[in-house]
Each structure stands twice: as structure tokens, then as C-alpha cells.
């Protein structure tokens, strides 16, 4: 049986030849992402903004009356609601954000939620409540804090571990790649104004995990080759390492994609955002391992001696005592 080989043997793509322009583009993308996040802002879901999100099925209608719902709930005076189809055509999710003035009132979110639901139930028959999320301003604030803390702590601890296992340059490189991945994901959420919820934090962490996996595989090969080819110029060595691990990179990314795409297409509507984010992250993470994590090693001055034990003062004294030069 002839086996499938996605990447032909002896593939040798000069990935790092254009490292400078790619780096410039990447840094511009990171900057653009942050500019988007800061100007357009993230479309916080109720987890982070507070307020209420209710999911309803209009069981007597073919299609949910979204425009009239928008008018009715907009008229309640809590600002513009976000109303989206959620699953089937007669299912909607209605999101009402907590007004800023009510953020410190603990019961405000529940009160708004009750009003929204009673308004809808009084105008339509047989509305089934599929789900409901109500989060008060204070709790939402805690979620924001905890999410940022979890992300920062995870990124730092991971970089430290890589520093310990490899060399400080690798730690910096991994951290840089992670910053790149997280920034671009955030930028994408800001650009398309997709709902940013606690689940998306879980997705970002999955992306970090995946991207890191990739980075470590490439780094591991670089370390190995640094010991093996003591005299190879670094750019060439990096290219070799990336090419040697390319088959694995393609294969793993592809298997993850084919596991995730069905989840995106047929999975529950409530997982859509999370799965979409992870799929996006697979591309971003793979790219960053090759074009962010590897070239930075050149600029940070990694060389073959990085993994050769350094002679200590005691060793030197020993050597001199033995009369060796």
C-alpha cells in the first residue's frame, strides 16, 4: 500500500529568506490589531459587559420576527439590543447590555432581563425560553479581571518554562509568538465584531496551547540541529529545522482542522464562536511558529555554543592546574 505523503521528501522551502518583510508585516498586523481593539473595541458579551442574553424559540412562527423585536426591546430604553439568529430560523438570541449607570447596582441585570422577557411573552404566543444568561456589572468586572489575569499568567509561565528548558532567546521568541497569536485573534474579534465571551477566552488559551506546541516542535529541532551542525549559518539551520518538521506541522494542523470543521458546521450553535476562534488560531499559530518564533533567534544571537556547557571558573582553574593550555 502506498502511503499518503502530504509533504514530499526533501522539501526545502526557503522560509526565512523573506524573514525581514514578514516580520514587518507581522508587527504591522499586531499594531493594527491593537488599534482595532482600542478604537472599535471588542463586542463584549454579557459575561464581560454585564446585562442579559436570552435565547428564544418562536415555536409558532417560521421565522423569528427580528425587526419588530428590535423595535420593541429598543423601546424599553436600555439602548440598542443585539438580536441574532441562533440555530434555526425561528430561534434568536437577544442581548441587552447593562447601562453603564447600572453597573454597580447588583440587581439591575435581573430587573432588565425580566422586563425584556415579559415584553416578548406578552406580544407573542408560545415563546420557548431556551436559555438565559444574566450577569451583573460587578460579576462581569470580576470575569474581565480574571480573564486578563489567566491569559497573562499562562503566557508568562509558559515562556519561563521554555527559558528554563531551552535558552532565554527561545523564551523571548515563544512569548513573542504568543503575543502575536493573541493580538491577531483579538484584532479579528474587534474587526468582525464577533461576540467576545468567556468561551472565547477558553479558545484563546487553546490557541496559545496549540501554537506553543508548534513552536516547541520547531525549537526542539533547532536545538538538535544546533548541536549537530556546529558550523551551519543560523538562517540556513533554521530553514532546515522548519523544513524537517514541515511534514509534521502540516499533518497536525490538518488533522485538527478536520476534527474541528465538522464541529463548526454541525456542532451546537453555542460552540460556533469558540470553534471559529480555534480554527483561526491554528492558522495564526502555525504561521507564528515559523515566521515569528524562529527568525527572532537570529536577531537575539543564538549560536551553536548556546547548548554547549560553558566553562566555569572552577573548570578553568582545574585545567590550568593540570597544566593544560
Amino acid at each position, binding site marked *: 500500500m502506498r*502511503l499518503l505523503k502530504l509533504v514530499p521528501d526533501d522539501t526545502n522551502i526557503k522560509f526565512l529568506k523573506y524573514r525581514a518583510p514578514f516580520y514587518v508585516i507581522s508587527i504591522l498586523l499586531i499594531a493594527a490589531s491593537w488599534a482595532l481593539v482600542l478604537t472599535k473595541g471588542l463586542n463584549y458579551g454579557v459575561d464581560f459587559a454585564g446585562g442579559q442574553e436570552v435565547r428564544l424559540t418562536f415555536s409558532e412562527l417560521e421565522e423569528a420576527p427580528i425587526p419588530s423585536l428590535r423595535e420593541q426591546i429598543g423601546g424599553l430604553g436600555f439602548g440598542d439590543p443585539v438580536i441574532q439568529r441562533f440555530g434555526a430560523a425561528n430561534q434568536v438570541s437577544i442581548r441587552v447590555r447593562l447601562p453603564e449607570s447600572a453597573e454597580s447596582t447588583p440587581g439591575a441585570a435581573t430587573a432588565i432581563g425580566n422586563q425584556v422577557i415579559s415584553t416578548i411573552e406578552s406580544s407573542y404566543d408560545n415563546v420557548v425560553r431556551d436559555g438565559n444568561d444574566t450577569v451583573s456589572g460587578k460579576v462581569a468586572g470580576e470575569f474581565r479581571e480574571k480573564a486578563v489575569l489567566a491569559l497573562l499568567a499562562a503566557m508568562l509561565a509558559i515562556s519561563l518554562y521554555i527559558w528554563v528548558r531551552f535558552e532565554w532567546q527561545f523564551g523571548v521568541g515563544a512569548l513573542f509568538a504568543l503575543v502575536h497569536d493573541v493580538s491577531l485573534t483579538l484584532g479579528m474579534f474587534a474587526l468582525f465584531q464577533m461576540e467576545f465571551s468567556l468561551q472565547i477566552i477558553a479558545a484563546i488559551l487553546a490557541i496559545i496551547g496549540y501554537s506553543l506546541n508548534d513552536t516547541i516542535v520547531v525549537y526542539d529541532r533547532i536545538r538538535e540541529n544546533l548541536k549537530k551542525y556546529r558550523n551551519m549559518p543560523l538562517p540556513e539551520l533554521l530553514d532546515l529545522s522548519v523544513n524537517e518538521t514541515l511534514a509534521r506541522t502540516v499533518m497536525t494542523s490538518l488533522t485538527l482542522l478536520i476534527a*474541528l470543521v465538522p464541529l463548526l458546521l454541525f456542532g451546537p450553535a453555542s460552540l460556533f464562536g469558540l470553534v471559529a476562534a480555534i480554527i483561526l488560531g491554528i492558522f495564526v499559530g502555525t504561521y507564528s511558529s515559523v515566521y515569528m518564533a524562529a527568525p527572532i533567534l537570529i536577531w537575539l544571537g543564538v549560536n551553536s555554543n548556546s547548548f554547549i556547557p560553558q566553562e566555569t571558573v572552577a573548570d578553568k582553574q582545574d585545567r590550568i592546574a593540570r597544566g593544560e593550555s
Partner: protein
Amino acid sequence: MLEFPRWKKIWLWAITLIAIACALPSILSSTSVRWPDALPDPMVNLGLDLAGGSHILLEADPKQVAEQRLENMEESVRAVMRQASPRIRIGDVSTGNDQLGFMVESVADVDRARELLLPLVNGNGMTREWDLSVVDETRFTLEPTSDGIDNAVTDAMDSATEVVRKRIDSLGTREPTIIRQGDTRIVVQVPGLQDPEQLKALLGQTAKLEFKLVDQNALPSDVDQGIAPPGSQIFPYAAGTPFEGSSLAVRRLGGIKGDQLTNAQQGVDPQTNEAVVSITFDQQGGAKFAKLTTENVNKPFAIILDGKVLSAPNINEPILGGSAQISGSFTTDSANALAISLRSGALPVDLTVVEERTVGPDLGADSIRRGMLAMGIGSLLVIVLMVASYGRFGVYATAALALNVLMLLGIMAVFNTTLTLPGIAGFVLTIGAAVDANVLINERIREERKRGRRVVAAVENGYKEASRAIYDANITNFIAGVLLFIFGSGPIRGFAVVLIIGLFTSVFTAVVMTRMWVAGWLRRARPQELNV
């Protein structure tokens, strides 16, 4: 690397089979096959987002506990001074600035008063509950210590949790989870509940019932502006009552509380056909109520629930039987809710719903069905790709993948963890990690063969060289998972749990188990060529 003595094989299979056995009850529970009752049945709990149900986070305001405590202290101080013989006269009582202040009228009584206050101030624990000081010879101030307030909040939350439990039990809901969280919060999780409104109404009602005498000397114009005469308080009428929108002045002291009850029932007033709540006092409460009504015949008294006046009937005659009827424009439902709340006791502090998540059971079931379908399709595609790419090694990888899923479920069941919707994403990621480990190993074996190593050496080296990256990657992911669990909340934790357990099972199955299988095959078949 490829040596597997018999004892090691037995161990590995034993671990695998035990973990898989633990997954069986969870898997069978979704079919019609019954797990024998005699056997232990560890289960993976489905999160509320999958099973349907309500998650309600309640929060108390510690300030309210402190205020309540100050009020109680005032009453204790007045009682102690009144009961002292000879009576100690005090005046100028104030409760501003979170402290209690009062004057002893005669300097001669100061030492005696201090003596009487000491037991109140010290509490019964190891900590001092109040700071007592005397200024200008006769002015006493009692300031709560922070330890004292902390103790009071803890006590209040403990009894609030008990009250919440009683109220939820009275609804007959199955398997509610009620947990204290942090200093001032209570988490309530009720699976499979269609409509949480009733539950929320029940938990949102403090049910603090008070009977207080109406201050008939208060000027209506003052009351309307919210100005209370000295020694009185102003309460608004409750919504739905005939006087809704107006307020009533009542005497601050001398009333009684409705916490000494033996029973409360919803009923119907035969004359007005209105829903009412009948309460029965215990002996002590009944005696107090009898005294109050005897001493104040022909005066109105207010029935106040949670700071709102329900009604202010006239006391026509002393009520000695120890029972009373409360009317206040109730519906049958609200009267029933009040009866439950009064039976279970008043909450020592108001609880506010600060987070609520409800998922209808249908949506949860639909999520599971769709999630399963998607995972099935995904797994199938992965299997095809793996076998097409790595042949026999792909079959081993697929078998490892199947074991991985079962073991992961089994271990989650043993630790009684909860599978949530984000947890399913964690599942997929774990599968990805397991596949990745095998991809790394198999690609490495290919490479080693290409470099001309013989079959056994190539396999051995493949595992050895690939393991380094696999372990590094899994350890970093483990670090991330633990941090997620520590700092994360809600859905993030559900994700972290699956991730952490999955790292162990995926390394175990994808690295250790496949190596055992490959080693066995190499020994049996002694292949000269590897199709990988």
C-alpha cells in the same frame, strides 16, 4: 526503549482497563442498558449548559449585616440598662458612622454601665467583637471591630445558606447544589429546571416580617416628605397594596419580629375571598404578640415585610391565641411563596441575584446530540487520514485515540468532574494533542529510516527523539491548564479540567501504549522493511 517485560504490560493494561471501566456507567447512562446497582458507578456530570438547568449566584451586602448588627446591639444595650437594678438611665442614643453612641445620665452609673456592657462587647469567641470607649466621662461609644464584622458576616452567610437550602427543598427540586462561595456569595445550581422564576422569587425574598406600632402623631405632610418624627421610622407601602405609593410612620422600637413562628400556611380569607398567609407563633413569640396587642388595643399596627408595609390594621381586641392572619393583596402564588419563606425562616441578610444562567433541557440535549455528531464525523475523518498516511502505525494511533477518549471519560468520572460545552472543545483539543504526538513519532521514524537506520533502531530513535518535544509541549500545556483552573471562572474551568486530564491520558495512550504495541509487533513479525 522497546523492552516491555510482562509485569509492565500487565500494569499498563490494568491501568487502561480500570480507567475504561470507570467510563462505562457514564456511557451506558445515555443508552437503555442499566448499570448493575451493586457496582460503584462513577459518573461524569453534565454541566448545566449541556443537561439544562439553572445556575444562580446570590450575593449579600456585608454592610447590611453590619447595620443589622448595630441595631441589635442598640436593643441589647437598652434592654440591659433597663433591666439593671437600679435602672440606668441613658439618652442621646445615636447609630451614625457605623458606631453606637449613648450618654449615661448620671456620672455615678458609668462604672456599672461599663460592667454590664462587657459581656456584650466581648462576644463568646476568642476575638473581641466591639471596641468600647468612654469619652467626656459619660459618653459611651461602641465600635464594631473588623473581626467582629467578619464573624457576623460569616454567621449570616452560614445561616443564609441553610435558609436557601430549606426553601429550595420545599420546591421539591431534585439534586440542587448549594455552595458558599467567597465571603459573601452563595451558588445555587438546580439541574433540569424549566422555569427559574419561581426559584428566583423565593430566593430574592428576605421574608423579614415585623409588627410595629403606627406613630399616630406623625404629621402626614412630614411623612410624605420622608421626615420621621423622633423615635419613628418611615416605611413605604408595598406594591400592589391599596396605599401603594404612600408611606407610613411607625415607632422604631417596641415592635416584635415575625421570626418566632412554628408554622405559616397560605389560605383564603372566607370573608373577602382574598389570599392570605396564616402564621402561628411559637410560645415565646405568641406571648410577645399577646402583650403587644393587649397593651395597644384600638391602636393601628403595621405589618411590615422586607421593609414594605403590607397593611396597618387596627387592633380591635387582644390576640391571645398565638396565631394571626396576614393580608396584603396577595395572589395565591405570592401568598404561597411567602408562606414557604416564613416557614424556612427569614434570611439574615438580603440576597441579590448577581449572575443567572439557565439552559432549557431541550437545548442542552440538542447541544449534546450535535456535539456527538460533529465529533463522530471529525473522528472518522481523522482516522482515515491517519491510516492513509501511516498505515499500520496509523491504526495504532487510531486505537490509542479511542482508548484516550474512553480513559479521559473514565478519569473524569472518578474525579466526579463536570463536562461542559467548552469542555467538549477541550476534548477536541486533547484529541489533537494525541494525534500530534503520534504524528511527531511517525514522522520521526520516517526520517530515521530515510537516514538509513535499520527498522528497530529507527523506531527506537523515533520514539526517543520525538518524546522530548512531546513532553515539553505537554508540560507547557499543563502549566497553562493549571493556571487556567486557578485564575479562570465558569466555562474556562470546565475547559481546563478536560485539558489537564487529557494531557495525561493522551501522553499515556499515544506514547506509552502505542510503543508497547509497536514493540510487540516488531518482536513477532521481525519486519525488514517499514511501510510508514
